[in-house]
């Protein structure tokens, strides 16, 4: 299958990006030049502000009959464990699409835009998500795929000041809220959110305006472009799971440490048969406790452990690494793994096997690097 170009494809190449196939698109993994490279881009994000193109992600919207947002919220609640009906306009929530067995089909951000229930889903599974939603939502619920929208992420401690200069008042948003803004002729949907652990924004913008907007952002000396490589090392330090690696159809949200995504008001089995898909097995795991848990591991030495590496307590295999790499911020290798709950306690000494060698590692609380979300002054 030929790879689709993203709306910013030419812009990435002009900025020295190395493009790689990802989620069916050609995407920038890193940029060249003095500010380029995964570590430089990573550090720039932690110190200043970086622009990421995440247009591969799926931007979807739901409305009920005659544009009824409440009907869409209620319909979606059949497929996710979060309280969507109570989301007020502009609010966002992290949630999960689950299958009947309670496995994770995708993780997503759900927003009440006031005009629709909007979703941002992972690029690699967006077509499956669309098929799943269409299969299980009533015909009267309209699902729109905003395929002509680009999505940018501006992340880092200087992101708010930079964006404020172009889009006045966007800096007034607090973490996990969003709103409609105008930049010249372009309507922007701006969310204070991201995938790096830093303060920052995700900005949905019509594709025809995205290049001009990207130029406006990067003409600010505080902003450099950053690629998928830095995005991955940043989110790993932030302890955020990556779908397809740390989450999958074989992962239970309780095991994944995502209990917070199971809204309290929706945990009890409803008598009227309106349970969310997967509720019974997920709540069973919630009650009895999972067999394994997703944990963080700090490795001694400099050799990283990668996805698939086995985790040992003495001679016994107790788990598997699902994401691993070198943390530029901490200057040491870190990993996420699923391990048996008996070995999941913070401080537990374990070993990871890499190419026949055993690397000492300690169970560490996540995030590895503290989050710096803006929750209001």
């Amino acid at each position, binding site marked *: 299958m030929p790879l689709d170009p993203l709306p910013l494809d030419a812009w990435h190449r002009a900025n020295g990006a190395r493009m790689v196939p990802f989620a069916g698109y050609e995407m920038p*993994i890193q940029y060249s030049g003095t500010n380029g490279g995964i570590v430089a881009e990573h550090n720039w994000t932690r110190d200043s502000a970086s622009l990421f193109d995440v247009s591969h992600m799926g931007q979807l919207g739901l409305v009920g009959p005659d544009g009824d947002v409440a009907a869409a919220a209620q319909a979606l609640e059949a497929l996710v464990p979060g309280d969507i009906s109570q989301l007020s306009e502009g609010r966002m929530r992290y949630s999960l699409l689950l299958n009947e067995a309670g496995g994770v089909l995708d993780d997503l951000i759900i927003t009440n835009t006031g005009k629709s229930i909007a979703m941002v889903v992972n690029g690699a599974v967006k077509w499956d998500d669309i098929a799943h939603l269409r299969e299980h939502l009533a015909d009267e619920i309209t699902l729109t795929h905003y395929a002509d929208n680009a999505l940018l992420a501006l992340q880092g401690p200087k992101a708010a000041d930079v964006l404020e200069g172009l889009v006045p008042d966007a800096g007034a948003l607090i973490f996990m809220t969003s709103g409609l803004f105008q930049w010249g002729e372009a309507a922007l949907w701006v969310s204070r959110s991201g995938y790096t652990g830093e303060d920052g924004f995700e900005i949905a913008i019509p594709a025809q305006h995205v290049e001009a907007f990207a130029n406006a952002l990067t003409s600010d000396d505080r902003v450099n472009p950053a690629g998928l490589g830095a995005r991955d090392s940043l989110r790993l330090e932030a302890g955020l799971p990556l779908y397809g690696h740390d989450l999958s159809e074989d992962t239970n949200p309780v095991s994944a440490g995502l209990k917070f995504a199971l809204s309290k008001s929706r945990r009890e089995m409803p008598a009227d048969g309106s349970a969310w898909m997967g509720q019974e097995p997920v709540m069973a795991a919630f009650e009895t406790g999972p067999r394994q848990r997703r944990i963080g591991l700090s490795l001694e030495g*400099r050799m990283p452990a990668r996805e698939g590496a086995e985790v040992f307590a003495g001679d016994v295999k107790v788990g598997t690494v699902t994401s691993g790499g070198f943390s530029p911020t901490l200057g040491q290798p870190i990993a996420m793994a699923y391990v048996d709950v008996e070995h999941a306690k913070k401080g537990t000494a374990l070993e990871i096997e890499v190419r026949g060698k055993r690397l000492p590692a300690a169970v560490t609380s996540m995030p590895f690097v503290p989050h710096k979300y803006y929750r209001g002054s």
Partner: protein
Amino acid sequence: MPRYFTDEHEWIDIEGDSATVGITDYAQEQLGDIVFVELPDVGAALDKGGDAAVVESVKAASDVYAPITGEVTEGNGALEDEPALVNTSPEEDGWFFRMTIGDTSELEGLMDDKAYKAFIDGL
């Protein structure tokens, strides 16, 4: 001192009956920031084309292959403290290991610098 190249982007310098091996500037550029290099033990017997070392970037682990058959005589200890030498000086200070030359005829199949340049220009 003749230098040869492999199509896996290793370079090999020949000095008498000893060879020094590293990865090329092109290779380090492709790999990005190097955070760890796993070198073969001194005394390890290497086969031409077989695994010799592993180089870890932030993103991934990549194998480095033996350009020729021989025995490892020395590893570059400087890479232990400063793996980034592979990025900053890939074809000099960032060398990986030294080895004996098991069979000089194996050198004939390798590229010289001109051939290697043409090879990477075609990639």
